[in-house]
């Protein structure tokens, strides 16, 4: 376990390093921040002072060297827009996205396990058909359209739910619902497929020959085996959501990291772009490690390999 985690940490560090290099240079392709932060009629001196103050006048490799050495000392730079440390700005947004992602994934995972398992139990049955069609529809519907339509129906017309903002329990309903549509549809299909394979496996036959009740056959003998591919896909989806539920956060005005990233890219707030990508990358790598550990917990064959 120890050895595995060390190996994994080294891999993660290498991919983070690669990512940072890429993001540093790509961000600087978006243009000169001075054009955005100074008045349109700013004098040449003012512009020069701005570039000098933020070190944009140095050659790009010098800027990169400075960035790396600051990073080594734990300094991620200041936000141009907010005039305070970029890390603070990002750390305010991260919990919003993470709680959104966690709730959404839990709902999607548990919902899809139940729906997918029941669908697989009688393939081609009524429940299977309804769940297949609706999950397919869910997985194919464009989420921005569903979100706006939902606001129109539930907030504007019926006035049941708030249109936007993060607040009481009611304000969570629509963002979560929109966020899980796609992962839920996908996961139902994965659970169903995986369950179908497992339910026709030899060890399920053995369990039945032992006189085990059908509910225990499905939820004890089959489910743990069927979960393996599901966890891989779920981890992938969780990473997708943690990566900034950009559309949902933007539409519903949630101050999450997805919205922060978009805003900082538009505003050429390089330090915030770099920091938010760094932090989300760490989150995603952690999710992957959690997926691997879960795999090993569920399947002894992986533990002993």
């Amino acid at each position, binding site marked *: *376990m120890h050895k595995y985690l060390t190996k994994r940490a080294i891999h993660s560090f290498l991919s983070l390093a690669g990512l940072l290099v890429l993001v540093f240079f790509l961000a600087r392709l978006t243009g000169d921040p001075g054009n955005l932060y100074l008045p349109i009629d700013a004098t040449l001196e003012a512009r020069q002072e701005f570039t000098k103050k933020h070190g944009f006048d140095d050659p790009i490799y010098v800027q990169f060297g400075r960035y790396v050495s600051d990073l080594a000392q734990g300094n991620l730079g200041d936000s141009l827009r907010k005039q305070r440390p970029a890390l603070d700005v990002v750390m305010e947004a991260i919990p919003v996205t993470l709680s959104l992602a966690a709730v959404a994934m839990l709902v999607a995972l548990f919902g899809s396990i139940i729906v997918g398992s029941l669908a697989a139990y009688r393939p081609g049955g009524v429940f299977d058909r309804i769940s297949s069609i609706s999950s397919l529809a869910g997985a194919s519907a464009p989420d921005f359209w569903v979100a706006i339509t939902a606001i129109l129906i539930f907030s504007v017309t019926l006035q049941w739910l708030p249109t936007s903002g993060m607040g009481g329990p009611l304000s969570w309903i629509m963002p979560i619902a929109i966020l899980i549509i796609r992962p839920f549809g996908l996961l139902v299909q994965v659970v169903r497929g995986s369950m179908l394979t497992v339910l026709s496996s030899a060890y399920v036959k*053995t369990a039945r020959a032992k006189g085990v009740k059908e509910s225990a056959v499905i939820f004890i003998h089959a489910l743990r085996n069927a979960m393996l591919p599901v966890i891989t896909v779920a981890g992938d989806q969780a990473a997708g959501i943690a990566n900034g539920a950009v559309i949902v956060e933007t539409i519903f005005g949630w101050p999450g990291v997805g919205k922060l990233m978009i805003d900082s890219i538009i505003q050429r707030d390089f330090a915030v772009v770099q920091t938010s990508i760094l932090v989300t990358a760490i989150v995603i790598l952690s999710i992957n490690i959690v997926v691997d550990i879960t795999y090993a917990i569920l399947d*002894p*064959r992986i533990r*002993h390999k």
Partner: protein
Amino acid sequence: MSDPKVPVLSVRDLAVAFHTGSGEFDAVKSISFDLHRGETLAILGESGSGKSVSSSAIMGILDSPPGFIRGGTAYLDGENLFEMSQTARRNLMGDKIAMIFQDTLAHLNPVYSIGWQISECFKVHRGFSTKEAWGRAVDLLEKVQMPNAATRAHDYPHQFSGGQRQRIMIAMALALEPEILIADEPTTALDVTVQAQILNLLIALRNESNMGLILITHDLGVAAEIADRLIVMNQGEIVEQGLVHEVFAKPKHPYTQRLMNAIPGRGPYRDLVVSDEIAKPILEVRDLTKHYAVSSGLFSNSTNSIVKACDGVSFDLHKGETLGIVGESGSGKTTVANMLLKLVEPNSGTATLDGEDIFSVTKDRLLLLRRRFQAVFQDPFASLNPTMNVFDIISEPWRIHKDVMAKDRYRQRVLELLDAVGMVADHIDRYPHEFSGGQRQRIAIARALALQPEIIICDEAVSALDVSIQAQIIKLLGELRDEFGLSYLFIAHDLPVVRELSDRVIVMKAGNIVEQGTVQQIFEAPKNPYTIDLLAANPIPDPAQMMARRTARGIGI
């Protein structure tokens, strides 16, 4: 205890069918039989005979859909299994009637410990507490002679050998002392010495508990050794039944007679005279060695160990000779084949073909040498590319070795090869899935012959085939050898098959050759204790020899 004269299981007119794309298929057509307490009933048949389907139907684990019971009754202790409620049926399963299977790795749940899986029986049927049930599971593991039962109960199926897993399955099936145990090919995947242990265990447990044992098998030897009565099935029907020694001594039905005649390893020994012309071997293998480092696990820090898959193996192969290599799993016999085929790189050693070592020649030279030795593998379902038709499969070697054959001659030559292996011209444009196992193996042999090799390496080439098909393929291999002067390296775990075809035999164990000699020496006067054990463990479908061994097992006739 109830009247011993009354059968514990009484099956009447059982018919099982499957829904298929082209209508209904009758897998079992109205069979009837009885099973008594303390009796071993063998149901013998080849693939597709309906022997497994009928037992699945009785057990209540028929794949349904598409399978369904068309009619008939199965009375267990006076109750019809097919008419009781689902719950009543489930209460009987695992309690009064239990089953063990061939592929134990697939039939045990990979993610639960074996102790958990055995103790589940007590929890489901007896409502035992977890602790109590676990204790009983450990007791059972001891009963089936699992070493360190208390510790090993915490382990998972993949951590056991095939023989140990079958012991686990037996422990699980016998947990609640059922009245009937259905054993579906319980020893088919096991080595002969392990097979003998498992059969002995089954018989001992049957004698102890007085249960009725149904043994489903394709192996006449196994049936001969432990069954009291025998049912022979063919194409969904019972063609013959009777006491086992009577059926073996005097098979009445033509199908049974054919089956008995197909048993390999009973003819005269082959005796190849090594004349001056062939005194010089065409293949000389010297000190062939392959060691594998077993790397430590993903989550463990255990130190690496070395597995000596092949540890200094040397032998010669002469023209027209068949050299049998026998051994149990892990003996290294397949590693030898894989190294000679250059599928596995040896650590050291040479294999000299006409003065050239195939392990050290240049790539271009190897391509030329390769024409001279070809291979036929075990699984004809996996060794033929499903997207290529027969013509493509057989002519593929010429597309690689371009100078062997002009393109316009391909078709003619493929037809000749098909004819040589007993196939017809019609087959040339068909795909592998349209053929049976035996036909596919013929196609694989035709492919091996395409480059007119001198040596064919047959790695368990007839092991996956039914006994009557096996006999045909062995006959074909013998005819081709004599016609084309081929040399075979014939690797098999099945001793009678090796005896049938080989001139000389090598016995391997744990990467080493423990004994070699002519086929007669090995089978008539084995010297090494391992060879003696191996021969002793091999079931013999011969009424006379069978009697002696049954007495030794305490079965009687």
